[in-house]
């Protein structure tokens, strides 16, 4: 152990001044990440203004309006419902899919994960457009159904709650699958073998051993899916259409109409929702059960 601390001590400190290495990224993140967010936070407590960005007058009205207005509350409720639905469905689909992938040989597992990673790199505009061309009035689904004579007139599949949930689900599903598959693949086979040798059948082995051991992957998958679902504006607006709103759409609308303090307040409500949801996810999945192991 003494050797290790020594190596650490030697590694970088003596090389280049530590400040010179850590300095630039730290300054950049402070100036361009923390500072603008703090500023946004301050703005969320200022009076709106017709001519300026804001009036220099403190108020909590920007928040008050949101939590008392029924429209906002309805939107928040709908946002939570949509994200919860996305979360549950993606978990139900991703877990079995991850189990399949985790059983592949390492070489094929990695290729499969790369195949799932690839769509994540494609712009969300493009991926949402894929669903538009499938579900649109003149899209693939309607054309085929019409041509085959199942329907008389095109179905309105787009611009609905369902379309948004489907879009978010497919855009975020890879995160969940990759997280869980990596966690499952990291579980030492001897654990499940030990459980089986002690008389647990496949279902009880899964329930008492595999599922708890995979909880870090489930937790990180759920957190990512939840955070990104809350803020995936482009997907929501393309598949929900101009009239279907979630909380993040309101942030965008208020910015476009230049109501800066209101937009700021809505942003922090969104962040608060994200944090609260994150806490609930952690409380339910309890990934700390397998701390100390890499998953």
């Amino acid at each position, binding site marked *: *152990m*003494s*050797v290790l*601390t*020594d*190596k650490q001590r*030697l590694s970088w400190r*003596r090389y280049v001044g530590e400040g010179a290495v850590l300095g630039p990224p730290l300054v950049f993140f402070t100036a361009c990440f923390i500072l603008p967010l703090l500023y946004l936070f301050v703005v969320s407590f200022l009076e709106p203004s017709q001519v300026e960005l804001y009036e220099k007058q403190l108020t909590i009205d920007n928040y008050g309006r949101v939590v008392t207005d029924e429209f906002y509350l309805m939107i928040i409720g709908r946002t939570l419902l949509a994200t919860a639905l996305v979360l549950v469905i993606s978990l139900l689909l991703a877990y079995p899919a991850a189990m399949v992938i985790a059983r592949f040989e390492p070489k094929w597992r990695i290729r499969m994960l790369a195949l799932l990673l690839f769509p994540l790199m494609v712009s969300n505009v493009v991926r949402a457009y894929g669903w538009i061309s499938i579900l649109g009035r003149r899209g693939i689904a309607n054309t085929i159904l019409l041509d085959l004579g199942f329907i008389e007139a095109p179905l309105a599949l787009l611009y609905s709650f369902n379309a948004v949930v489907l879009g978010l689900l497919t855009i975020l599903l890879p995160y969940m699958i990759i997280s869980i598959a990596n966690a499952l693949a990291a579980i030492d086979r001897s654990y499940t073998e030990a459980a089986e040798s002690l008389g647990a059948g496949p279902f009880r082995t899964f329930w008492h051993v595999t599922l708890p051991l995979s909880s870090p992957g489930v937790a990180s998958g759920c957190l990512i899916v939840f955070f990104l679902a809350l803020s995936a504006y482009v997907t929501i607006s393309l598949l929900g259409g101009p009239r279907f709103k979630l909380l993040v759409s309101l942030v965008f609308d208020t910015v476009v109409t230049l109501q800066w303090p209101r937009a700021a307040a809505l942003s922090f409500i969104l962040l608060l929702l994200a944090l609260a949801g994150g806490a609930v996810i952690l409380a339910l999945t309890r990934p700390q059960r397998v701390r100390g192991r890499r998953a």
Partner: protein
Amino acid sequence: MTEVDVSLRAVRKSYGDVVAVADLTLDIPRGAFFSLLGPSGCGKTTTLRIVAGFARPDCGDVLIRGQRVTEVPPYRRDYGMVFQNFALFPHMSIADNVAFGLRMRRVDRGSIKRQVSESLALVKLAGYEHRFPNQLSGGQQQRVALARALVLRPAVLLLDEPLGALDAKLREEMQVEIRDLQRQFAISTIFVTHDQDEALTMSDAVAVMNHGVIEQLGTPREVFERPRTEFVARFMGAGNIMEGRVVATNGAVQTLDLGAGSVRARDSGKRSGERVLVTVRPENVSLAREAGDLGVRANVVSVVYHGATTHVHLVAGPADAVMPMVAHLPNRSASDTEWQRGETVYCRWNEESTIFLADRP
């Protein structure tokens, strides 16, 4: 006076509350193969790292060839080092690995090429210049690491458990090879190991370390046959530690009472009645079923067959002060006595085999 290549003067190093090296003073004469031997955490590796400059002592001084290098960074000290995992640069060919130190010293190209092939030939790896480390076996990597360190003709060679990563058979071969190279170069060498066999077979001098202190420094023979402390005795495999007192001195021979029986020893200078701590190497112990004037009474706990020898584990002494003992008996013929578990026997050894240890602190 012989020339000294490395000396440590009252070197001290602690990590937090843990003292890794406590006021160590050490001189390594030119050309000596010097081993630092001890269990993990005894401070041997820290001592080596202090010489190498990877650890800075809290106080004390390090000298290489008479020059004080305590504050000199590692890359300006005159030594070559072989690391436990060899630490060959994976992105460089064997030739580039060996040439690295020469390049850093800005030796000219032609001379580098010549020296690299010379030193690869020396470790029997001529023709491997363009291979890469991951294409070599463990033993070959070890030789490259040696060549890389020796090509610089350093004042001192530092070996940090360099055989730990090799399997048993290869290890023995490399022991011989390293020792041959060391003699050929007549280079002062500090060898860190936790394996007493390695230290005994390779070294001119062995320092047995414990808790940051050198418990005993001597030739392999001295350390093995005449351990001075209980720790050294145990570490060298002489586990029979016994307390007793001097009861009689008769010329050069003393009689000791060990509680479970009496033994003889060479005169230690201790007076009658004085408390003593002694040990005897297991291979010097013989067993008998008959009681006599001398001999420690003990019960056989287990008998383990080891091929050339049989190890008989015993307990001696009263229930409240049990002394575990062990005897290694040579297996000479089928007529050797068969010892049975539970039987009472008498352990004997001649007076030269009784070794006095420093009293327990």
